[in-house]
């Protein structure tokens, strides 16, 4: 039938494209690496730069993952960065002001305290997620405004609780330092790329990715972002599912706060400042549509990597840090423009 034939070629185009979408992002990443390597006279392509990029990736990825879930569901979360700040500060507050621990506790001795810090940070994130959910599902405030409100409130509380200064407490920097393959002399083979915490962040991302692409949770997220009315008619409880999404998002942002705590050796109220922009940028660069219903975890993983590679690359070739935000803004605009063009050409 004519119908069938048309749709099959259309389908092939779509499939070909989505297959290419990830490949395309990897290609962009490779090109960036080549460009920065040549502009920096080769120094960009080194294990130390690689591990720095991955450490930064660990700091951003969970916020980007949280943002991806929200964006696919058709919402937006402006509060992820402030949630990170608040979580890292409450974790620091409990250890420093609550348990009177100091930065003298280090190494393995700090682990029990760090476990508690992780718990406090995640619970704080969950709390912000719960507030977001109440604002959105019960008070029916649109996500943009609801999360703008929690953004302001969380950022303010982070400053109040910390007194505006970082709360220095116990930490174990070996958790954030790259692991080396044992037995190889680091002076000859520098294999240190992944720190234990980066590996943890990657595992968390993997788990959320599986929930997004293989489980009911993900299907409902796409369904709601695609057509709320259809999702409701299919019997999905929109409020319950969006609550889950914002809770997961909050918990992920809280865990990112823990990462920031370990990295800094304390809770700083400015750790997450401006990071919502990066989370949204990584999500959009990764191919998620701000209209909802479209996006993939792989895209976000590589989108975050692209963002950080650009940042580090610009820094290495001597572009002033002040340009960072502008570059991020251009990348967001560029990614959305590409999406719009693709849509216009009927690729999606």
């Amino acid at each position, binding site marked *: 039938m004519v119908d069938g034939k048309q749709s099959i070629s259309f389908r092939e185009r779509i499939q070909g494209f989505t297959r290419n979408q990830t490949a395309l992002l990897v290609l962009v990443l490779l090109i960036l690496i080549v460009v920065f390597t040549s502009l920096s006279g080769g120094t960009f392509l080194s294990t130390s730069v690689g591990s720095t990029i991955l450490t930064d990736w660990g700091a951003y990825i969970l916020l980007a993952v949280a943002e991806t879930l929200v964006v696919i569901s058709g919402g937006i979360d402006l509060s992820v960065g402030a949630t990170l700040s608040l979580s890292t500060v409450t974790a620091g507050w409990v250890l420093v002001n609550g348990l009177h621990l100091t930065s003298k506790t280090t190494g393995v001795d700090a682990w029990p305290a760090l476990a508690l810090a992780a718990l406090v940070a995640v619970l704080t994130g969950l709390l912000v997620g719960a507030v977001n959910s109440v604002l959105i599902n019960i008070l029916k405030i649109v996500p943009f405004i609801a999360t703008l409100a929690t953004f302001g409130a969380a950022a303010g509380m982070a400053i109040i609780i910390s007194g505006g200064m970082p709360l220095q407490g116990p930490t174990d920097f070996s958790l954030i330092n790259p692991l080396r393959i044992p037995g190889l002399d680091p002076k000859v083979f520098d294999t240190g790329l992944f720190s234990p915490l980066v590996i943890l962040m990657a595992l968390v991302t993997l788990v959320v990715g599986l929930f997004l692409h293989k489980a009911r949770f993900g299907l409902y997220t*796409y369904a709601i972002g695609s*057509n709320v009315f259809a999702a409701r*008619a299919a019997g999905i409880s929109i409020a319950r599912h969006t609550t889950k999404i914002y809770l997961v998002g909050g918990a992920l942002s809280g865990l990112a706060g823990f990462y920031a705590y370990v990295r800094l050796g304390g809770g700083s109220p400015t750790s997450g400042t401006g990071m919502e922009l990066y989370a949204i940028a990584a999500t959009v660069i990764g191919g998620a549509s701000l209209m909802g219903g479209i996006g993939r975890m792989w895209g976000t993983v590589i989108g975050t990597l692209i963002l950080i590679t650009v940042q580090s690359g610009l820094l290495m070739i001597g572009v002033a840090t002040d340009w960072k935000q502008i570059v991020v803004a251009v990348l967001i605009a560029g990614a959305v423009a590409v999406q719009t063009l693709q849509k216009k050409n009927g690729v999606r």
Partner: protein
Amino acid sequence: MAEPLIRLQQVTKSFGPVDVLKGVDFEAYAGKVTALVGDNGAGKSTLIKGLSGVQPYDGGVVSFEGREVHLTNPRQASSLGIEVVYQDLALCENLDIVQNMFLGREELKQGTLDEAAMEFSAIKALQSLSVRTVKSVRQKVSSLSGGQRQTVAIGRTVLRNAKLVILDEPTAALGVAQTEQVLNLVRRLADNGLGVIIISHNLADVFQVCDYISVLYLGNMVARLETVKTTRDEVVAYITGTKVLEGVNE
């Protein structure tokens, strides 16, 4: 005559001061297609939303298979066997055919979606309706034509073991050939023993496929006619209100 599959008695629905359904009686039978016609704003969609549980009625009695039921949410209506194909096509563009057909009723295997099993059942359901226009059940709905989308929506009701299928303007946006396809599907549903209610503005469609015709006029049921015993002119007269309150509650 056999007992109706669904019977509404004196159902009412208001939005604030506006009475949209003013005590409506209505029934539909298994194995039959019942048309629900009426002018824009007559209350057809509102009547349907009450049946699907999306927007419960304010008052009146609803009986399904002879028992009184209270339709308060879609899941519950669906568990009784009432499924609706909405006018504005309740499909998710970014999901594929299988995902759409199983949405809200996914099959799981060890906590993950059992894609293979769902794909198999989806294909079987479409085959039971002799659907040949859909080549792959893994294409996204955004790539489908209007007729194919209706096919998916109707196939979904079969998959859900519906007893009563309600279609709100299923052919409104379709061309001639696709309309024909969808009407054939509708007839096949009834021939398979399901009760079908179809809302339509197109009297040609109605006369082609329906056994009974019920006419709503400004929130009142003004006629219930047997298709073979009426004419288009008569139906139009009821729709436009030039002929009123005959053959109701007979």
